[in-house]
């Protein structure tokens, strides 16, 4: 196995990194967001002047046109609740129809949906999409880091719940783009937590990550071994979290006080409910006298009551844990430990129930609010500066196609390691059929209407044949970010159709371009800088290739030929040091032409050597 040694692990030193800004790790949470950075394996969570790392995921769109994010936005809840948006993560990648099924009183007023059906909120005179709200949060995190470190930040690893579907992942990516951040990778939250935890503790073996955030629940089973973090199975619920506790408590309080309830009342009562919940992690009882709207009321809550209110949700999380363990064929006793992640695991009943279920105390010695961002920062460093650790993740949900009778044909099963590509052949079911509708769905159920629809497209131009004669190959590819691309081809004629599955509720390219224009003045500049950086990477690749070839086979050239190539190389190097993208591209093209004959001679030599090698083998 000689090829194992050719390229040493970790040997991806990246020269000229200083041309780019910093790469950060971002935990874009339902309730709070956190940003962190890693340098030489040392992580630093970015904090405000008061030492707090948590930026509330709250945005206020003031009537004065000012956008406030974080604490400043949360303070507005008291004065102008109608301008404030919170828990936006729950709406990422959702359509207006989905939102109706989310249940509960949403503390938003919905506006007209976007072209693609994506839900939008009405805030006073403004209409904003969840992507824009998330972009405002991301922009604040970016600014905060730039001010704290005095350096430009232009790339990020952003975490998403493992159970986020394709639509929500795409929406997150779009939000980053709007905020002027290049997404190096979307990493699943439990995997990021495991990375931070594993590197910190040097643990090996099987670990379970129980991640209960504000709006999402994830449970992942990982194997940690010598720097490899291999996800074995994952499960969860993208609409289950501490928010549900708050809603249940708020509902209880509204019942106690009576009267009508407006959307703004709900926002304020949710704040009270959260405060009650958090207090009860420290103290056995909580009570307060509050004034919401025109109604004054007093409420008390004790820990036992809180626990009976939230128990049903915790039982649901444990059912998911059981399913994941069964899926992987792992007994709880085989686990090296259970790591608690997410602010909602501070609730005492969560700890008690998890301990009871797994028959051991969970590990909670790491800060559950910050560990995900720290893991993301470590991954950002690994991606830009190289690292010995490796994350191997899986698809959280099965991906498939609608077939006859509304049934789902699964193409990629859940818990398949990514990246992955799979294809399946289908055929026509009517004589002379010339088009085929392809409906891509995600989920575990057998019926299409019980799965999530990711997108539809049509393959046209199938030559008329008898039913069953056409061979239509549909290919699914999921990249390392968990994003899906689907394409279809009729094999007997080669007719092709493809889409990067733009989720039913996503932004169109035009909408995206429009938002980019409207939202940041320097978007164009950002884009130019990025393209220039890419052109330089490509040019350096070409110079490196030619230099290596000259070292290996330089004797194939006479002095004149060598001089011409050296000159072309020098021209590329000169272009790289300038800022003209087109000049760089042109110089690389010239270099490629200048080395064409050299390449041919090298191939001839290689073929002769291979033939000679075979001849020697045969003699033995």
């Amino acid at each position, binding site marked *: 196995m000689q090829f194992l040694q050719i390229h040493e692990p970790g040997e991806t030193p990246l020269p000229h990194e200083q041309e780019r800004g910093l790469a950060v790790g971002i935990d874009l949470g339902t309730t709070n967001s956190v940003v962190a950075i890693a340098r030489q394996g040392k992580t630093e969570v970015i904090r405000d002047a008061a030492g707090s790392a948590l930026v509330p995921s709250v945005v206020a769109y003031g009537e004065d046109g000012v956008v406030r994010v974080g604490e400043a936005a949360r303070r507005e809840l008291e004065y102008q609740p109608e301008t404030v948006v919170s828990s936006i993560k729950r709406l990422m990648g959702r359509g207006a129809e989905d939102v109706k099924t989310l249940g509960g009183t949403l503390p938003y007023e919905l506006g007209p949906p976007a072209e693609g059906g994506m839900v939008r909120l009405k805030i006073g005179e403004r209409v904003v999409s969840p992507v824009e709200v998330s972009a405002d949060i991301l922009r604040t995190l970016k600014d905060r880091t730039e001010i704290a470190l005095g350096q430009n930040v232009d790339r990020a690893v952003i975490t998403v719940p493992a159970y986020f579907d394709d639509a929500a992942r795409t929406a997150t990516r779009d939000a980053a783009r709007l905020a002027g951040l290049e997404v190096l990778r979307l990493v699943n939250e439990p995997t990021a937590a495991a990375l931070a935890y594993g590197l910190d503790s040097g643990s090996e073996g099987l670990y379970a990550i129980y991640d209960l955030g504000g709006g999402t629940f994830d449970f992942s089973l990982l194997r940690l071994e010598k720097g490899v973090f291999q996800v074995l199975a994952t499960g969860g619920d993208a609409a289950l979290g501490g928010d549900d506790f708050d809603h249940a408590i708020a509902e209880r309080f509204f019942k106690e006080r009576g009267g009508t309830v407006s959307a703004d009342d709900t926002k304020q009562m949710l704040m009270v409910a959260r405060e009650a919940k958090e207090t009860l992690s420290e103290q056995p009882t909580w009570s307060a006298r509050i004034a919401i709207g025109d109604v004054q009321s007093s409420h008390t809550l004790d820990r036992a009551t809180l626990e009976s209110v939230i128990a049903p949700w915790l039982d649901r999380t444990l059912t998911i844990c059981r399913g994941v363990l069964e899926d992987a064929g792992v007994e709880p006793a085989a686990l090296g430990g259970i790591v608690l992640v997410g602010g909602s695991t501070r609730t005492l009943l969560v700890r008690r129930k998890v301990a009871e279920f797994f028959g051991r105390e969970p590990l909670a010695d790491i800060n559950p609010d910050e560990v995900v961002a720290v893991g993301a920062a470590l*991954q950002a460093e690994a991606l830009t500066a190289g690292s010995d650790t490796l994350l*191997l993740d899986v698809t959280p949900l099965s991906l498939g196609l609608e077939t006859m009778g509304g049934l789902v044909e699964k193409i990629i099963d859940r818990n398949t*390691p990514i990246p992955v590509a799979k294809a399946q052949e289908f055929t026509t079911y009517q004589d002379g059929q010339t088009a085929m509708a392809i409906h891509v769905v995600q989920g575990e159920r057998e019926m299409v209407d019980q799965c999530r629809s990711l997108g539809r497209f049509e393959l046209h131009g199938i030559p008329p044949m008898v039913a069953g004669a056409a061979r239509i190959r549909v290919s699914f590819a999921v990249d*390392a970010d968990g994003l899906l691309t689907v394409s279809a081809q009729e094999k007997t004629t080669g007719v092709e159709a493809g889409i990067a599955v733009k989720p039913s509720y996503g932004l169109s390219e035009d909408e995206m371009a429009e938002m980019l224009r409207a939202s940041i003045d320097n978007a164009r500049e950002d884009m130019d800088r990025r393209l220039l950086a890419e052109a330089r990477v490509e040019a350096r*690749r070409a110079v490196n290739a030619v230099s290596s070839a000259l*070292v290996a*086979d330089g004797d194939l050239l006479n002095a004149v030929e060598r001089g011409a190539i050296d000159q072309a190389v020098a021209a590329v190097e000169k272009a790289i040091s300038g800022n003209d993208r087109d000049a760089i591209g042109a110089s690389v093209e010239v270099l490629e032409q200048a080395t064409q004959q050299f390449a041919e001679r090298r191939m001839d030599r*290689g073929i002769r050597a291979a033939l000679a090698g075979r001849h020697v083998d045969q003699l033995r």
Partner: protein
Amino acid sequence: MTGSGAGAPASCWSCAGPVDAALPFCPTCRAVQPPRPLDHFARLGLPVDFALNIAELDRRYFALQRQLHPDRFATKTARERAISQSQAVSLNEAYEALKDPLERAIYLLKIKGVDANPDGCHTVKDPTLLMEQMERREALMEASTPSAIEALAREAASHVSESEAAIAAAFAAGDLDGAGRETTRLKYLVKLLEEARARKARLTAERSSAA
């Protein structure tokens, strides 16, 4: 595959020089090369054999992913990123096919020219196997407590191990027919075990929600 004698060299997309077709990196400029059509064993540098050391499989898979995973190419050129993705896809495909004994048996039969009929639930010609499986399935349907199902699952699990050993012995003896027959049996046993686990999970969940 040891890299030598694998036929005429391909041309490196980056430096245009010769590359041995089995190598994932160009020996001259070190650029990552697109995955070549190799069988799953060769891709992971393992001997073509059913009796496979899982720890060795993991070791090879991790070592190759360390070099080829897209995370290693995040700041490289678009072309290198795309190639590394196809390399990682091929590695994952090979790993998934070899990791699971049933999948490995089916794959090995396939490359040895025997179609193990992966969806052949309807074409079992072996009446003894059919009877055996029907009896087990009935027993599972009748079991109504988690502990009764657990006992059946344990029994199925031990049959699975026996069947895997029988497949290994058949392959070792070069008995492809025997390996094929036993693979069909393993397919049933694995399915039964899955059903038992699913049924137990359902029952446990029902009980805990009723409590």
